[in-house]
């Protein structure tokens, strides 16, 4: 994975020193809150319902064991013993003190981490496929691209005060696990007719108040022009994006208003000037970064591991966990493990310090020291030998991390909602908890099959509810929590927005409603159809009838 060089270290250490001084000025009263707020936000420090919240960037969701141990240490020493992994592959601490914020940042800097650009109208942490470097369907490791973009976008002098925040996601594979079509820019690695790698460029996707699926503005961008092309997009957006209305300021609104074709033409025109300027990385710099992401030294293994097959045969619980939480790896004899952060009745995405350490240990021992955070709020051990899967599973059981539910209905994405978030209109976590308890029976979950349920506590849609097969949005109706349900959304390469099924449900009835939807699906399902397939075939009516039938 990427390692800081002296340059990066200097950059981050300078920022810590700067922030330490700014905090001191605030605490002494030299800075007012109005002056200080943008400065603390630039360092990822928010003020939430109960306390400050520190959002730490996990670039493209990749962590070393050492970094994970540091996060555990911070959780224990400066927070209340846990952290929350988010849909942006970051981690949030819910109880840090301002007085200790600079100390936390200094500790993070020791392990090459920071909280820069996790807030504000700048280019945010770049996200990537959490199976990067391991997925069988990958053209190239997307993290090389993501790291190049991370460096280019760090304190970008021209693009640090955009009309609104800006999120970029990258995938190196054709199966999109990074939800690139619902980002401001989505990049998908593709090959042209001559077999050269480049990017398909998608712009203007996003969720929130005005959910939109991104539009492709370029089918193939040669790799070497990545940064000049991004610079062209950002410049057009910086100049023309709306600044009169915060709700219309994202690039998606600009693209929608002027049309994807016209937008693409403006970008191309701007790019003609920029492409041979000195924005793009020289090949040797690209190669330098690429070298950090060279595949780990995989052993030459047979594709099938006999001991693993035997263990799977003998132990049904293990077999079940493998079936759901283990994916195919590109190297023979290896596998990708998803560590579910969705235990029955748990808080989606939360991990205790001890759990973080347990995963760090497992990664150090069995997965080349590397951990991923997925946008689905799980952790991933990307390179595990099949022969070690049983030991990994045992380790996860000991840490209470062995829920065999990846991709199933209880693998719920949920934002923090009103339990933590200042912007929330309703709670989301307790709804997720109640649903996971209702569907606790793992056999039943298997029977239902793959189903993405996503919950947001307000219209900002951090829980990606629009692109859940079942999406739940918490709303406030005269002081009461209500939940609007959307059906049929999808975040992958066939991204589509869900549609509202009907009037919202109360806090007490929303779980029943979800169960009704699931039962209706099971009743209508033919030949193992997925949820969205059944929905597409039968339409919304059968669901509405069951949901809103007079009792």
């Amino acid at each position, binding site marked *: 994975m990427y390692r800081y060089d002296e340059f990066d270290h200097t950059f981050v250490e300078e920022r810590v020193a700067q922030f330490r001084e700014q905090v001191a000025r605030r605490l002494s009263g030299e800075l007012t809150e109005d002056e200080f707020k943008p400065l603390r936000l630039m360092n990822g420090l928010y003020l939430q319902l109960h306390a400050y919240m520190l959002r730490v960037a996990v670039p493209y969701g990749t962590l070393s064991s050492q970094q994970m141990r540091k996060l555990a240490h911070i959780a224990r020493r400066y927070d209340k013993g846990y952290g929350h992994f988010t849909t942006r592959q970051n981690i949030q601490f819910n109880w840090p003190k301002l007085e200790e914020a600079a100390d936390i940042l200094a500790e993070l800097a020791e392990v090459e981490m920071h909280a820069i650009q996790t807030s504000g109208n700048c280019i945010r942490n770049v996200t990537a496929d959490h199976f990067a470097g391991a997925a069988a369907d990958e053209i190239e490791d997307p993290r090389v691209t993501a790291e190049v973009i991370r460096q280019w976008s760090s304190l970008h002098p*021209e693009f640090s005060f955009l009309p609104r925040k800006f999120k970029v996601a990258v995938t190196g594979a054709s199966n999109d696990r990074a939800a690139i079509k619902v980002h401001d820019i989505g990049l998908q690695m593709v090959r042209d007719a001559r077999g050269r790698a480049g990017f398909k460029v998608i712009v203007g996707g996003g969720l929130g108040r005005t959910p939109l699926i991104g539009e492709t503005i370029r089918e193939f961008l040669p790799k070497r022009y990545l940064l000049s092309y991004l610079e062209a997009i950002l410049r057009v957006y910086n*100049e023309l994006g709306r600044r009169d209305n915060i709700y219309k300021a994202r690039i998606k609104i600009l693209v929608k208003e002027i049309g994807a074709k016209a937008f693409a033409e403006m970008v191309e025109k701007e790019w003609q000037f920029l492409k041979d*300027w000195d924005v793009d990385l*020289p090949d040797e710099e690209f190669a330098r970064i690429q070298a950090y992401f060279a595949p780990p030294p995989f052993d030459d293994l047979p594709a099938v591991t006999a001991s693993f097959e035997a263990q799977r045969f003998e132990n049904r619980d293990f077999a079940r966990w493998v079936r759901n939480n283990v994916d195919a790896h590109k190297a023979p004899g290896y596998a990708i493990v998803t560590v579910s952060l969705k235990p029955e009745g748990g808080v989606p995405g939360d991990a205790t310090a001890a759990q973080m350490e347990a995963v760090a240990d497992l990664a150090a021992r069995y997965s080349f020291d590397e951990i991923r955070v997925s946008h689905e709020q799980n952790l991933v051990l990307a390179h595990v030998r099949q022969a070690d899967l049983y030991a990994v599973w045992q380790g996860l059981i000991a840490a209470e991390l062995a829920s065999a539910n990846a991709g199933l209905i209880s693998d719920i994405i949920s934002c923090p909602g009103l339990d933590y978030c200042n912007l929330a209109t309703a709670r989301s976590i307790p709804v997720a908890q109640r649903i996971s308890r209702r569907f606790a029976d793992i056999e039943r979950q298997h029977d239902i099959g793959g189903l993405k349920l996503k919950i947001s506590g307000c219209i900002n849609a951090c829980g990606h509810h629009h692109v859940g097969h079942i999406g739940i949005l918490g709303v406030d109706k005269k002081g009461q929590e209500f939940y609007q349900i959307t059906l049929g959304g999808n975040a992958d390469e066939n991204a589509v927005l869900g549609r509202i099924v009907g009037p919202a449900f109360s806090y007490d009835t929303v779980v029943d409603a979800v169960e009704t939807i699931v039962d209706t699906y099971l009743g209508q399902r033919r030949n193992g159809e997925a949820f969205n397939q059944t929905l597409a075939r039968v339409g919304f009516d059968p669901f509405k009838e069951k949901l809103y039938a007079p009792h």
Partner: protein
Amino acid sequence: MPLIKDSQIVEDVWTSLDDGAPLAPGVWPIVSLERWQAERETLMEAGVPIGLRLRSDQSPRAIAEELEHFGVIALAFPKFTDGRPYSSARLLRERYGFTGELRAVGHVLRDQALFLLRCGFDAFEVAPDTSPDAWRAALAKIKVRYQSAADHRSTAGRLSRKAVRPAQARTPALSLEPEPCAASWAY
């Protein structure tokens, strides 16, 4: 408003004129785009250097062909979070080759000093109580940078990761920068 250039407060030789205000002999005016467009001939005959003021919603693309007439271009920040003037500045310096003074006016804070400088600004109209020392200090805080921008123009065989260095050629008077980072890793 005090004007900071070369990390000092300097006397402002220019006068910002409202649209209705008359030209006066010997006064170097900075005028709005509207006035420039309406009174181009008169202004050019006045026999003094002319400055141009652009609001953040006015793109320099509109006057790209006329830059030789301006000794200074003032780009206005209605609030510091309006980032359009950064793009305008880079366009003026990098694309249109503007060599005169590029001045940041309006809500200009020292926390933005480095961004301004890197986009090609070389003069800053600041709040009355601003000390040039604080500006210098703000600039000295972050020495490294990851991307190329208007403050550095050599293109041949260079890497993008650099320490902030004094700007080149077109902004010769600039000395607001921190000490150049001499370490070899910076290049």
